[in-house]
C-alpha cells in the first residue's frame, strides 16, 4: 500500500509543490497551443491581405512563443513528471502503466511541435512563404493534438468511467469528461494566447497606434469563443461523478466560488472582446491588456483548482485515494495495520513503538501529504481546542463527516495512537508556539 518512501517538503507539502508547478505549466502550455492557432491563422490572413504589420508582429510573437513556450514550457512539463513521481508515486505508477502509449503518442506530437516551432521561428524570410505557412499549420496542429491527447489522461483521473469495470485503456481515455475537457482547454488556450498578443504588441513602439489597433482587433477574434465557456462547462459538469457535482453545487464553498468565478471571468472577457474589440474595433493599451490577461490567468487557475479540488478524496476517482491508499485496500489496512504496509516508515522504529511515535508515523503516512506540520493546512489549527473524544469520533468517521477526505484506516491501536499524537500536539505549544495564538486571534476577530 505505502511501499514507496514519502517526500517531505517543509512548510509547503509535496502536494502543493505539484499544484504550483502544474498551474504555471498549464498557463504556459495553453499559451503555446493558442499561440499556434494565432500564428497559423494570422500568417494565412496576413499573406492573403498583404498585411506587413501583422506579419511583422507574428514574427515577434513567434519569438515570445519560443522563449516562453519552448524554454519554460518544456522544462516545466518535465517538472510535472518529476514532481508527481515524488509526491504521488503510486498514482504516477498506475497512470504510466495504463497510459504509457498515450503519453508516447503525446510525445510524438510534442516532438513535431518543437521541431516545427523552431523551424518556423528560424525561417522567417528564409524559406518560401508557402513553406513557412505550412510550418505554422504543422506547429498549430501538433500543439493542439498534444493538448487533445493529454486531456484524455487528465480527465481520466476525475472520471475514469467504464474503465473501472472493464480495465480497457480506451474506456479510460475516452471517458465522460474527455471531450468537454478538450473544448475547455482549447477555449482557455485561445483566450490566454490572444490576450498575451495584445500585451506583446503594446510592448513594441515600432507599431503605430493604427497598426496596434488592427493587430489587437485581429487577436480579439480568438476571444469571442470564450462565450461558449458556459455551455461547455455545463457539458463538463454533466460528465463528472455525482459527489464531485455536489462539491461544486455548494458542497464545498470554495469550489463553488472558484467555479463560478472561472466561468464568469471567461465569459466576461469573451463578451468584452466581441462588443468592444471586434464590433466596435476599439484599441486597448498595455495596462488594460495586462488587466484582461490577469483576469484570464486567474480564471484558468481557478478552473484548474476546481478540477483538482472536486477530485477529492481521490487521485484516481473510485480507485486510488489522495493518500495513496487504494479503495479496495481499506479493509486490509484496518485488519493488518497501516505500519505493516509502510516499510519505509518502519526504518529505525522499535518493534513496539510507543503510542506517540506510532501516532506520528500514522500522521506522516496518511495526513502529511495535505496537512503540513507547522505549514500549509496545518492540522493543529484545524483541531485546536477539540477534546479527545471529539477528535477520536471525527477521525473514526472522517470520510462521512468530511467526505472530501480519504477514510482514516488502521488497527484500533493505530487509530488511538494518532489521537494521542494529535492531542499531544495541542498540549505541546513548543511544536508551534504561534499556533494557538493564531487560532485565538482568528476566533477573536470573528467574534
Amino acid at each position, binding site marked *: 500500500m505505502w511501499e514507496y518512501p514519502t517526500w517531505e517538503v517543509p512548510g509547503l507539502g509535496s502536494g502543493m509543490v505539484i499544484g504550483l508547478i502544474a498551474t504555471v505549466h498549464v498557463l504556459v502550455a495553453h499559451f503555446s497551443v493558442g499561440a499556434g492557432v494565432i500564428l497559423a491563422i494570422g500568417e494565412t490572413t496576413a*499573406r492573403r491581405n498583404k498585411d506587413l504589420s501583422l*506579419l511583422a508582429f507574428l514574427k515577434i510573437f513567434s519569438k515570445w512563443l519560443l522563449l516562453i513556450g519552448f524554454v*519554460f514550457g518544456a522544462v516545466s512539463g518535465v517538472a510535472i513528471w518529476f514532481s508527481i*513521481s515524488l509526491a504521488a508515486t503510486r498514482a504516477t*505508477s498506475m497512470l504510466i502503466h495504463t497510459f*504509457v502509449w498515450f503519453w508516447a503518442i503525446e510525445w510524438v506530437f510534442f516532438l513535431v511541435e518543437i*521541431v516545427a516551432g523552431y523551424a518556423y521561428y528560424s525561417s522567417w524570410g528564409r524559406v518560401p512563404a508557402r513553406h513557412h505557412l505550412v510550418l505554422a499549420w*504543422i506547429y498549430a496542429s501538433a500543439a493542439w493534438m498534444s493538448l487533445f491527447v493529454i486531456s484524455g489522461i487528465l480527465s481520466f483521473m476525475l472520471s475514469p468511467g467504464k474503465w473501472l469495470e472493464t480495465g480497457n*485503456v480506451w474506456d479510460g481515455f475516452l471517458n465522460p469528461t474527455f471531450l468537454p475537457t478538450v473544448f475547455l482547454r482549447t477555449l482557455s488556450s485561445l483566450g490566454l494566447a490572444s490576450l498575451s498578443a495584445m500585451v506583446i504588441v503594446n510592448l513594441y513602439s515600432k507599431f503605430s497606434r493604427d497598426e496596434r489597433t488592427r493587430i489587437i482587433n485581429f487577436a480579439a477574434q480568438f476571444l469571442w469563443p470564450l462565450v461558449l465557456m458556459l455551455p461547455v462547462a455545463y457539458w463538463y459538469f454533466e460528465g463528472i461523478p455525482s459527489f464531485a457535482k455536489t462539491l461544486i453545487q455548494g458542497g464545498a464553498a470554495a469550489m463553488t466560488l472558484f467555479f463560478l468565478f472561472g466561468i464568469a471571468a471567461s465569459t466576461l472577457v469573451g463578451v468584452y472582446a466581441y462588443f468592444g474589440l471586434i464590433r466596435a474595433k476599439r484599441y486597448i493599451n498595455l495596462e488594460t491588456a495586462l488587466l484582461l490577461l490577469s483576469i484570464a490567468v486567474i480564471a484558468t487557475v481557478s478552473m484548474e483548482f476546481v478540477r483538482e479540488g472536486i477530485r477529492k478524496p481521490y487521485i484516481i476517482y473510485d480507485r486510488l485515494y489522495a493518500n495513496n491508499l487504494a479503495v479496495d485496500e481499506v479493509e486490509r489496512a484496518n485488519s493488518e495495520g497501516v505500519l505493516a504496509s509502510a516499510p519505509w516508515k518502519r526504518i529505525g522504529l522499535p518493534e513496539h513503538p510507543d503510542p506517540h511515535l506510532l501516532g506520528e508515523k500514522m500522521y506522516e503516512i496518511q495526513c502529511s501529504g495535505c496537512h503540513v506540520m507547522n505549514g500549509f493546512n496545518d492540522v493543529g489549527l484545524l483541531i485546536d481546542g477539540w477534546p479527545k473524544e471529539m477528535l477520536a469520533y471525527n477521525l473514526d468517521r472522517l470520510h462521512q463527516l468530511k467526505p472530501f477526505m480519504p477514510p482514516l484506516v488502521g488497527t484500533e491501536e493505530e487509530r488511538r495512537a494518532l489521537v494521542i499524537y494529535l492531542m499531544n500536539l495541542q498540549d505541546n505549544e513548543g511544536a508551534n508556539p504561534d499556533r494557538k495564538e493564531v487560532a485565538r486571534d482568528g476566533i477573536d476577530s470573528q467574534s
Partner: protein
Amino acid sequence: MELIPNPDSLGLPGPVWFLLLLHETTQTIHFVFMNFVLGGSWFLLWLHFGRKVDWKEQLYQRCLSVMPIALSMTITFGIAPLLFVQTLYGQFFYTANVIMGGFWLGLLAILVVAFYLVYVLKAKRGSDDRYSSPSIRFVLHLVIALGFTIIAFLHTANGVLTVSPHLWESAYSDSLWGTLFGKSDLLVPRFLHNLVGALGIAGIWIVWIGNYRGSLNPSEQARSGVLLSAGATMLQMVLGFWYLSALPSEMVKTIMRVDSSLGWHFAGSIAVAIPFVVCVIALTAVPCHRGLRWLTSTIGSLLVFGMVTFSGKVREALLVEHFDLSQWTVNTQSGPILVFLTLFSLGLVCIGWIAWILWNGFAESSEVTEESLY
C-alpha cells in the same frame, strides 16, 4: 529486500523487448544531443578566450546558435526514455527519485536558468551592452557549463541510486528532503565517464559545425573539434576501466566472459569503440574529409547506442537478485501501440520534410524581407 516496492500490479502494457528498444533508442538520441550541450558548454568557455581570431569567433557564434536547439532536443528526447524507464523499472526509479527528492526537482531549476542564460549570450546586442563584456560573458559561460555539469552529476546519482537498493535506507534516513550522495563506489567513475564521453561526442559535433558552408578556415575549426574528441576518447579509456573496476567483482568476471549476455554487450561496445578511435585519429589528419566525417559520426552514434545498451545490461545485472524484467505480467495494448507507431512514422516524415525545406531554404537565401516573398 523489504524496502523494494512490488512491481505495479497493472503489469506492462507492451512486450519488454519493445519497451527496451524504445527506451534505448530514444535515450541514445537524447545522449547525442545532450553530449553537445554538456561538452559544448565547456568548449564554448574555452573558445570564448580566442574570439579575436576570426575563425574562432565564427565557430563560437555558430556553436552558440546550435546550443538552444540541441538543448531543446535534449529535453524533448529525454522525455521518451523517462516514460519507458518508469514503465520498466518504476519501483526502483521512483524510489531513487524520492530519496534525492529536492535535488532531483532542483536540477530542473538549474536547467531553466542555464537555458535562459544561453539565450542571453546568444542575443545580438550593441557593443555598448554590458553582456558584451568578456568578463561577464566568461562568468555566464562558467555558470552555464557548471549548471549542465551539476545536472549530469544529479542524473548519474539518480542512475546509481536506482541500481543500488542497498544504499536506500542510509540515504533516505539522512534527510527526508532526500540526499543523493549514497556512498557508492560507482558514482564518481560513472559521472566522469559520462562527462568525458560528452566531450568526445561534442568534438564530433564541432567537426560538423566547423565544416558548415561559409566557414572561415574550416580545417582549423574542425581540427579543434577533432582534438577535443581525440583527447576525451583517450581519457575515456582510462575512465572506462575505472568504472568497470568499481562494479562488483562477480559482475566484472561475467563481463569478461564472452558466453554471457553482459560479456557480448561489452565486447560489442569495445568492437565499436576501436574503429571510432581509429576514425577520430584519421580525422585529425583530414578534418574536412566528408566521407570520414560521416563514418566517424555513424560509428560514434553506434558507440553511444552500445554504451546505452551495455549500461542497460549492467542495470539488469545489478538488480537481478531483486527483480528480473521477465517477472512482469504483460498485458499488451495492441491498439494504442499501433496508433503510436503510425503517428511516430508520420511524425518522422514530417520532421524529415521540415529538415529538407530548411536545408534548401538556408542554402538558397540569406536574410530576405517579407515583401520579397509574395
